[in-house]
C-alpha cells in the first residue's frame, strides 16, 4: 500500500505544482499578460462543455479523423497486399515509397486546400493521404514476411491462391497492420487538427484558430487541454482495440514463464 501511495502523492503533487507555477506566472503578468489564469481557463472549460458549438466541433474532429483512418486502412491494406504479393511491383515501388514516407501531409496541405477548399472533405482527404503510406508499407512488410514454409504447406494441401491469401498471408501480416493502425490513429487526429488550424477545415482545429486570431486566450488554452485529453483517448482506444482484435496472434499472447 505504501509503495502505491507514494507515486500517487508525487503525481498529484507534480500536477499541483505545475498549476501553482502557471497561476504565479499569469499573476505576475509574464509575457505581457497574455497568459490566462488557471481559474479563467477552468471557467472556460465549463463554458465549452455547455456549448453545442463545441460539441459539434468535437464530433466533427473525431468523425473526420476516424473516417479518414478507416479509408486509409482499407485502401492501405488492399494496396499493400497487391504490392507485397508481386516481387517486381515491390521493387518498383520501394524507392518511391521510401522517398515519400518521411514527407508529412502538411507539405501538400496548400495543394489540397487549393483543390478542395476549406471543407471537411479536404480534412478527410488529408488524413487519408497522411495515414495511407505507413499502412501500405507495413502491409507490404507483413505480406513479405509470411513464413514460406506455411505458404508452401498450404499450396501442397491444394489451397487456391485466394484461400492462401485469406487464411495464411493476411493473418500473418495482421500484427504489422495492427501496429500501423495504432501509430496512424493519433496521427489521424493530429492531421485533422492541422487541416482545421491551417487549412480552415471544420472542427477543433478551426476553433483553435479562431480563438488565437480573436485573442480569446482562455478558450485557446481550454481547447488545447481538450485536445490533450482527446489525444490520450485516441492512443488508449487504439491500444485496447489492437489487443482485443489481435489477441490470438502469438506476438500478443501472454507469455507463460
Amino acid at each position, binding site marked *: 500500500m505504501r509503495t502505491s501511495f507514494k507515486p500517487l502523492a*508525487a503525481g498529484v503533487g507534480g500536477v499541483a505544482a505545475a498549476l501553482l507555477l502557471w497561476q504565479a506566472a499569469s499573476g505576475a503578468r509574464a509575457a505581457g499578460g497574455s497568459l490566462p489564469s488557471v481559474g479563467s481557463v477552468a471557467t472556460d472549460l465549463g463554458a465549452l462543455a455547455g456549448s453545442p458549438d463545441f460539441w459539434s466541433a468535437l464530433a466533427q474532429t473525431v468523425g473526420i479523423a476516424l473516417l479518414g483512418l478507416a479509408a486509409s486502412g482499407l485502401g492501405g491494406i488492399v494496396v499493400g497486399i497487391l504490392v507485397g504479393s508481386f516481387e517486381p511491383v515491390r521493387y518498383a515501388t520501394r524507392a518511391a515509397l521510401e522517398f515519400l514516407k518521411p514527407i508529412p501531409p502538411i*507539405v501538400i496541405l496548400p495543394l489540397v486546400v487549393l483543390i478542395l477548399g476549406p471543407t471537411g472533405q479536404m480534412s478527410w482527404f488529408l488524413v487519408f493521404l497522411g495515414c495511407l503510406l505507413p499502412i501500405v508499407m507495413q502491409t507490404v512488410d507483413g505480406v513479405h514476411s509470411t513464413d514460406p514454409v506455411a505458404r508452401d504447406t498450404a499450396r501442397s494441401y491444394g489451397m487456391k491462391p485466394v484461400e492462401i491469401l485469406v487464411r495464411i498471408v493476411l493473418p500473418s501480416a495482421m500484427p504489422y497492420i495492427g501496429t500501423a493502425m495504432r501509430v496512424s490513429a493519433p496521427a489521424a487526429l493530429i492531421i485533422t487538427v492541422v487541416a482545421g488550424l491551417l487549412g480552415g477545415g471544420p472542427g477543433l482545429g478551426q476553433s483553435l484558430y479562431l480563438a488565437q486570431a480573436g*485573442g480569446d*486566450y482562455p478558450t485557446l488554452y481550454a481547447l488545447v487541454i481538450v485536445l490533450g485529453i482527446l489525444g490520450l483517448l485516441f492512443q488508449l482506444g487504439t491500444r485496447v482495440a489492437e489487443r482485443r482484435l489481435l489477441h490470438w496472434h502469438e506476438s500478443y499472447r501472454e507469455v507463460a514463464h
Partner: protein
Amino acid sequence: MDKLMNKRPVLWLLGIGTPALLLAAWWLASAGSTDTFFPPLADIVDRFRALWLFDHFGSDVLVSLRNLVLGYAIAALAAVAVGFVTALAAPVRWAVDPLIHFLRGIPPVALVPIFISLMGFGPEMRVASIALAAFFPTFIATVDGLRAVDRGLLDVAQVYRLSRRDRVVAVLLPAASPQIFSGLQVSLQTAFVVMIASEMLGPSRGIGAMTLLAQQSFMISDMWSGILLLGVIGFAANFLFDLVRRKVLAWYIGSRRLARAS
C-alpha cells in the same frame, strides 16, 4: 538459387527505373498543361530555381532551416538530459508522469497558437514551438529505454563499483541508445511538421509561409515549387538522420544481424 541471382539485377533496375519513369511521365503529361492546378513540371522547376536557389535562399530557406536545426538540437539535448534524471530518480518520475502523459496527448501543432499568444510571431516563437513539440518523443523514448536496461548489466556495474558517471556514460547510455534514436527520429519528423505549421500561421517568413502565400495569391507554380522543396527537405533530413544512426549504432545493428542469423 541460380534463378534468383539472375533476377536480382532486373529487380534493382526496376527499383531505380520506376521513379525515373514516373518523373518522366509527369514531365511529359504536364508539358503544355493548361490546367490551373497542375502546371507543367518544367514551369515548376523553373520557378524552383528562380525562387529557392536565388531570391529567397537567404531570406526564407536558411531561416526555416536554422529554426529547424536550433529547435531540434535544443529538444534533443534537453529530452535526453531530463529523461535521464526522470528515469534514474523515482520521485521525479512519479511527479512528472501524469503531466507528461497529458502533454504528449496534445497534437504538437496545437502548441503553436499558444506560443504565438505568448511570444508573438518572431523567430523565438518558432524555435520554442519546435523545441517543445520535438521534446516529448525523445523524452519518452529515453525514459522507456533506460527502464528497459537489463538488470544484470546494472548488477555487473555495481559489482565493478563503477562511479555514477561511468555507469551513466559507459553502461546506461549505450544500452538505451537504440530506443533513444528511435525517439530522436520521431522528434525530427515532429520538428519538421511544426516548423512548417509555425510558418503558415500569421504574417511570417520561411518556406512554409512562402508556399501558403503563393497558394493564396494563386501563383500555382510557386506553390508547387514550395511543396517540392519541403518534400526534398523532409526526405533529406530523414536520410541524414539515418546515416548518423547507422554510424552510431553500428555495433547494435551488427549484433542484431548476428542474432538473427544464428
